[in-house]
């Protein structure tokens, strides 16, 4: 029998695998989350890491930055952070008699927005507008952000004190929402006995540059999506719209985003076609934060219930 055809150009895939392996060596025992993070960046989406403090959100973001050879900025969000602190300000220059724009940290390719839900809604929305439109406007002048532009944001669960939860509409800006969760026993044991994470981070070598990322993105767009798969994807979307516990189901944009992420995931799995397994792997991280549940319903539980309910055509 004929084996599935291999991906034609293996160079980038090998570099991708090497990058994933490198991040896995820093963040122990979380291969799925690491693969999701890479998938998100390949699909040109923004990533939201959500969990309690101390499980490695920032470590993961730093490891990603170190693995990708991209301009990198980090912003620690606090409650007194102002929009101008991230976008930048126009300063009057005495010599030329004009205002000159001093770009803020947002003008980068990979932005780590740490603890995004500690900032005031005003600041959050400044960042989220930039994420949606790929540009920032200061004093009536629109400045384009460098492309590609990735945001890796971390946030604490909303029930912790001193946070401003992101509104539902703005959660939609993130392609994937990933929870890290506590490491399992073996991983935690290795973590405790190993070297300081900061030292390891400092030793990481970049394996993927912008061009490689572009190439991977192009390859992901070329993966085959069969009619049977589209039927299944559409059935999932439709199921979210008639589920009794969901107030607002997934939008077509959410469906497109889920498909793009699934393509990248298939690529990261070494395939040039998308399987139902890919969609199932991405459905909870890509869909659960976009569902608006009814009273008392839990988003991830509903998303899992829908997965268990919709037949694979």
């Amino acid at each position, binding site marked *: *029998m*004929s*084996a*599935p*055809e291999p991906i034609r150009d293996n160079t980038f895939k090998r570099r991708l695998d090497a990058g994933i392996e490198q991040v896995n060596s820093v963040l122990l025992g979380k291969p799925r989350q690491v693969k999701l993070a890479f998938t998100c960046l390949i699909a040109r989406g923004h990533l939201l890491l959500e969990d309690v403090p101390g499980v490695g959100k920032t470590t993961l973001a730093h490891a990603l930055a170190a693995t990708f050879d991209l301009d990198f900025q980090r912003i620690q969000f606090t409650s007194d952070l102002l929009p101008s602190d991230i976008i930048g300000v126009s300063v009057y220059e005495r010599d030329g008699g004009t205002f000159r724009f001093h770009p803020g940290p947002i003008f980068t390719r990979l932005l780590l927005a740490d603890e995004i839900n500690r900032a005031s809604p005003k600041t959050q929305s400044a960042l989220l507008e930039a994420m949606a439109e790929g540009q920032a406007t200061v004093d009536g002048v629109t400045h384009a952000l460098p492309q590609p532009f990735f945001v890796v944001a971390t946030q604490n669960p909303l029930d912790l004190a001193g946070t401003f939860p992101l509104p539902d509409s703005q959660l939609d800006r993130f392609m994937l929402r990933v929870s890290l969760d506590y490491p399992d026993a073996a991983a935690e044991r290795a973590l405790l006995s190993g070297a300081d994470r900061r030292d390891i981070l400092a030793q990481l070598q970049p394996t993927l540059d912008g061009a490689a990322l572009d190439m991977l993105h192009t390859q992901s767009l070329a993966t*085959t*999506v*069969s*009619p*049977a*798969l589209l039927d299944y994807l559409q059935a999932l979307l439709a*199921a979210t719209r*008639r*589920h*009794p*516990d969901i107030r607002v189901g997934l939008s077509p944009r959410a469906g497109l985003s889920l498909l793009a992420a699934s393509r990248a995931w298939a690529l990261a799995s070494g*395939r*040039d*076609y*998308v*399987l*139902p*397994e890919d969609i*199932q792997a991405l459905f909870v991280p890509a869909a659960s934060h976009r569902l608006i549940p009814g009273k008392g319903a839990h988003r991830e539980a509903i998303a899992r219930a829908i*997965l*268990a*309910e*919709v*037949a*694979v*055509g």
Partner: protein
Amino acid sequence: MNFLYALTHKVREAPISAGTFNLVCITMACVVAVHASHLPIWLTLLLGFALLASHWRRRHRPGKTPMWLKLPLTLGLLAGIVVWYGNLFGREPGSAFAVGLLVLKTFECETVRDVRVAVAFACFALMAALLSDQGLVVTVAVALAIVPALMSLRSLEPGQAQRTITQAALPALGLLAAAVPLALLAFLFVPRLSEPLWGAPAADTAKPGLSSSMSPGDLTELLTDDSAAMRVSFDGVAPGPDQRYFRAFVMWNFDGRRWDHGYGRRGEVAGLLPQGPVATYEITLEATHRRTLPALDVPMAAPEGARLSADRELSSNDRIDDVRRYRLSSALGYGLQADLDENTRRLGLQLPPNFDPRARALAQQWRLTFGQNDEGIARAALGLFHDGGFRYTLAPAPLGRDSIDDFLFNTHEGFCEHYASAFTFLMRAAGIPARVVTGYQGGFYNRLGQYLLVRQSNAHAWSEVWLAGRGWVRFDPTGAVRPERIAADGTSAGDGSGPWYQPAWLQAARNRWDIVNRLWAQGVTGFDALRQRSLLQPFGVREAPPSMLVTILASGICLLAAIGLGWALYRRPEGDVAQRALARLKARLERRGLASRASEAPGHYFSRAARFWPSQRKELESLGTLYNHLTYARSEPAPELARRFARMAREFRPPRVVK
């Protein structure tokens, strides 16, 4: 097993959605509505209110209903029913209690299991409605009330939480329609019992009817009751309005106020000499809970299962608790009991002493005037009613001790009972044997349906007078007062100005509706054990035994099942070769112990199978790869790959797992 228990247990305890609860409430409302005709009005209103309260509670105070609320509600219901009906047993209080409990059940409808129990009970309560009324309207209402019940059950299924009522109603209606052939089959061929299976007796007074005694004012209730008493279809031309007298009871005994059957006249059936036309007809009698069968004056012989009394009253051997049909022939012109023996003559002249002296005096005076001319005396009495300022009314003034005197000389108003009673009294006082006969008179001839509809309001009383050489002759004194009451082809006993006036179009509509009711009563309700046995007569089976019916029933069910299966196979979604092969393989592997779910990705399923049967790992993995490849790795269908997969899947033999 533990896993299975946990799984089912969890499903049964799963909470229900708001949509399902709404459907359950609608189902309960339908049950109350179907029962509303026989529930006391206070209970109907209270149950409606309880249903609304239950709905409000679930919306605004979700959670378990506390016991301090449930217990008083249940006890209150119990107490209310016992106080109203006097007890808790029997058909009426029993079904009222069932409906009440059902509505209260909505207060604790939280889980899937609750809904299943409540809906099953609701279906039982719907069936109970047919115990008290099997008319067309109730039957159709019960069938329709099953629709929300089916919708509730369907909404419990995963993935069936439909958004709109219409989307949910269509499959339920479809299910109902699919059940119709089976229902018809069961209706025709499930062997009938001659007696109803359930013994919950209805009260004798459920419906007023003619009774074997009569005192002034007795019939008032009946004369204002427009419900059908019986329907008569004649072979050939129906007799004219003046001949439509249906005798039920002959009354000999008078105590000054009340006429009754007394012990009746014993002895041989009075001889009958037909003179003139004979009418042959079939009567469909509504349930009376008595034995008497009305018959057109005068029945010639008793039908099967009934007998003639000495006075040619027809009575059935058993009580008429259901619609009854019987065929009869009656002589319209007759000489009845030409010879009167001494005992009967004495019975026909019996009068209570010391009552009504003025009437007696009047009769004596007539006797002096007319000598031996008995018929002349009778004519004089009719003349008195016609010219003496008498008035026909259903609401006459009350009568004193000497009721006949009071009526003849003071009040001058009354209806058939008063006239028949006074007339018979006068005849007896004049020395002419006479008796009161009650029954029905008139009726509406429905030309469209070719039958005579006799309503309860056609109840009537008249007299029979024995004249030498002629036998018993019918005299109807009411006709002398109000000829149109007798001659009318009308529908009600009303006196024209009373509350019984109905516009012509309403009467016409009611008569059309009565045809539908008649067809239903004859075709459906009246389909009894007797008719069932003769069901196969067209096929040469004179009397079908129950075993034959059961055989036909079983074959019919098998045939329907085969048709249903064929339909399901025909309508099976058309998948491609590979999908069908995969489905078959999954079914086969499931029998060998590997469960599968529709929502599982095929690749994942095959890797699981590979772990399940490690010895066949290679084959299973390549099956999975091939399937994924042909289904998901290309945008165009790949028929040759699909066929290859189908062949491989067919040839795959999983080893038996020894447990």
